[in-house]
């Protein structure tokens, strides 16, 4: 065990209380991020993570304001409670189209029953102020790492509304033509802060350059960062993309700067924005790419404050 200057304790990878082996490389030990993880290792990481993130038993325990690094783990019961609160108005409205005299309590009971299917046991639910991150995966997803990556973006580029992000099994994102058109790693509901990531990013894409698989098809920073960070930052570009009223501005920027971007960015105005955004953030605004600098100036992107 190692005690750092802040008094926090750390365990090397491979020990039952390891949280991913952040000191393992210094000690000459195998790191959890690069070695094939055993299920025992995954369980140990999960237990360790669960211990170190405060638990909110009910929604009343959730801090209302976002604070970087101060995530809370929601119990399944609390997440179901949240589901009922959020979904009741929509379901009530739909149901009353057919039966206007339905009582609130009857609808609420039905939504509560439905919440058991919508919010399954075994998933991880994390909240920080209004933001929610869900992990539904049997892979050894490092929840703390994921939340830290989200923090990097929320701090400098707050989402337009409450974040609703989920990590899910790669099979869920699979399409019949994946071998021709490529595998889906991220999805975003346009105009919202709702996005999904494939769990194949864990642990396959937790080392720098892991996503640098097709020369010129992504922005240069893909060689320097983990695949997870690249995909998440790109998806964040979709989240913070100006809304419908500014579609003309998006198209105009694409016409002027699109040619300077990656092959992937050149496929559409939306992807151009997301690719330019990712490169801007991942180079901390230091990119020499004329397209990236053009987008940053035109849309007023700030230089990120994160340290690495």
């Amino acid at each position, binding site marked *: 065990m190692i005690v750092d200057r802040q008094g926090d304790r750390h365990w090397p990878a491979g020990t039952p209380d390891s949280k991913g082996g952040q000191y393992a490389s210094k000690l000459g030990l195998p790191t959890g991020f690069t070695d094939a993880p055993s299920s025992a290792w995954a369980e140990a990481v999960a237990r360790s993570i669960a211990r170190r993130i405060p638990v909110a038993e009910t929604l009343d325990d959730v801090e209302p304001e976002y604070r970087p690094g101060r995530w809370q783990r929601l119990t399944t019961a609390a997440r179901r409670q949240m589901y009922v609160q959020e979904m009741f108005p929509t379901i009530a409205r739909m149901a009353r189209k057919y039966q206007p005299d339905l009582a609130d309590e009857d609808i609420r009971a039905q939504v509560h029953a439905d919440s058991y299917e919508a919010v399954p046991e075994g998933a991880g639910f994390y909240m920080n102020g209004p933001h929610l991150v869900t992990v539904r995966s049997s892979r050894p997803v490092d929840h703390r790492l994921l939340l830290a990556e989200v923090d990097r973006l929320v701090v400098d580029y707050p989402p337009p509304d409450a974040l609703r992000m989920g990590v899910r099994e790669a099979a869920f994102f699979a399409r019949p033509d994946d071998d021709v058109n490529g595998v889906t790693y991220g999805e975003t*509901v346009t105009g919202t802060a709702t996005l999904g990531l494939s769990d194949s990013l864990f642990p396959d894409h937790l080392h720098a350059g892991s996503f640098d698989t097709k020369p010129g*098809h992504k922005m240069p920073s893909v060689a320097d960062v983990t695949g997870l960070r690249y995909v998440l930052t790109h998806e964040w570009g979709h989240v913070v993309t100006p809304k419908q009223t500014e579609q003309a501005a998006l198209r105009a920027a694409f016409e002027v700067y699109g040619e300077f971007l990656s092959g992937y960015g050149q496929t559409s105005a939306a992807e151009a924005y997301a690719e330019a955004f990712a490169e801007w953030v991942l180079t901390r605004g230091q990119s020499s790419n004329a397209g990236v600098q053009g987008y940053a100036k035109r849309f007023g992107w700030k230089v990120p404050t994160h340290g690495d």
Partner: protein
Amino acid sequence: MATEVTRDRFDGTAETVPLSSLDDEQLRWWASLGSTEALGLLAARPRPVTGWAAQAAGRMGRGRGQA
């Protein structure tokens, strides 16, 4: 403009599809994350849908067995 979902297939070409074109399982995923629009789409589907979201509105509004 209808709400869309962008699928990022980084080694190929991104794909943008209307939210309404997703299958039930995909809509349930977005609804479970908190998308009330996805939930509304599920509940409004005319054919019987097995699953929590559409059943919620359908069972209550149209009576059990008819949703």
